[in-house]
């Protein structure tokens, strides 16, 4: 299956791209994808646990399985206002 990963703020700087498509095995969970990305992007390991994640623009916990076509974003600490 294929999902789209979005990067914002410091995560975008660390990843060096605003978004990308990822081919993943079926059953990959939100947390699993975070761990995959953390291995590739060293700056992500400064977070001891997975940051808040959104699937299709809704906050979701790590155990949620991803599905083909999902839009996934891991969110660095927000700072609106």
């Amino acid at each position, binding site marked *: 299956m294929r999902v789209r990963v*979005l990067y*914002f*703020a410091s995560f975008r700087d660390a990843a060096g791209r605003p978004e990308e498509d990822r081919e993943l095995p079926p059953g990959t969970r939100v947390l699993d994808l975070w761990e995959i990305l953390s291995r590739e992007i060293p700056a992500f390991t400064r977070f001891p646990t997975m940051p808040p994640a959104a699937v299709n623009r809704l906050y979701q916990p790590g155990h949620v399985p991803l599905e083909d076509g999902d839009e996934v*974003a891991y*969110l*660095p*600490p927000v*700072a*609106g*206002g």
Partner: protein
Amino acid sequence: MYLTDRPIDLAAFFGAPRPSDGAVCLFVGVVRNESEGRETVAIEYQAYEAMAESELAHVVASVSQEWPGASVRITHRLGRLSVGEPSVAILVTAPHRDTAFAACRLAIEWLKEYVPIWKREIRPDGSGEWVESTRA
């Protein structure tokens, strides 16, 4: 639409209260010239726009539920803002001031907690730094 790339027009945002309103509480966040002792000349705001729109709608709905009688409006600026420019405005009208103050406070706190918006403080030398702590 809660997000805007254009300067926030506070007079237009203020609008007209409802006949049943007796209190209007307006909170405006503006760009400050320093952050923990370091000079700031501008702030760049970035958002996960589609999600920020839905989360802001969620904040408005939740605050309205928490404080019945309150009417809540929010606008948040994106892009590069100079010192003194409004970055966010929250307007709450209600029959009485207790509700207006409380609902306005709740709205800005929930916005800061949940809405996917980020800011990068720009220093006088042109370098920038993403704000990633609760002091935001």
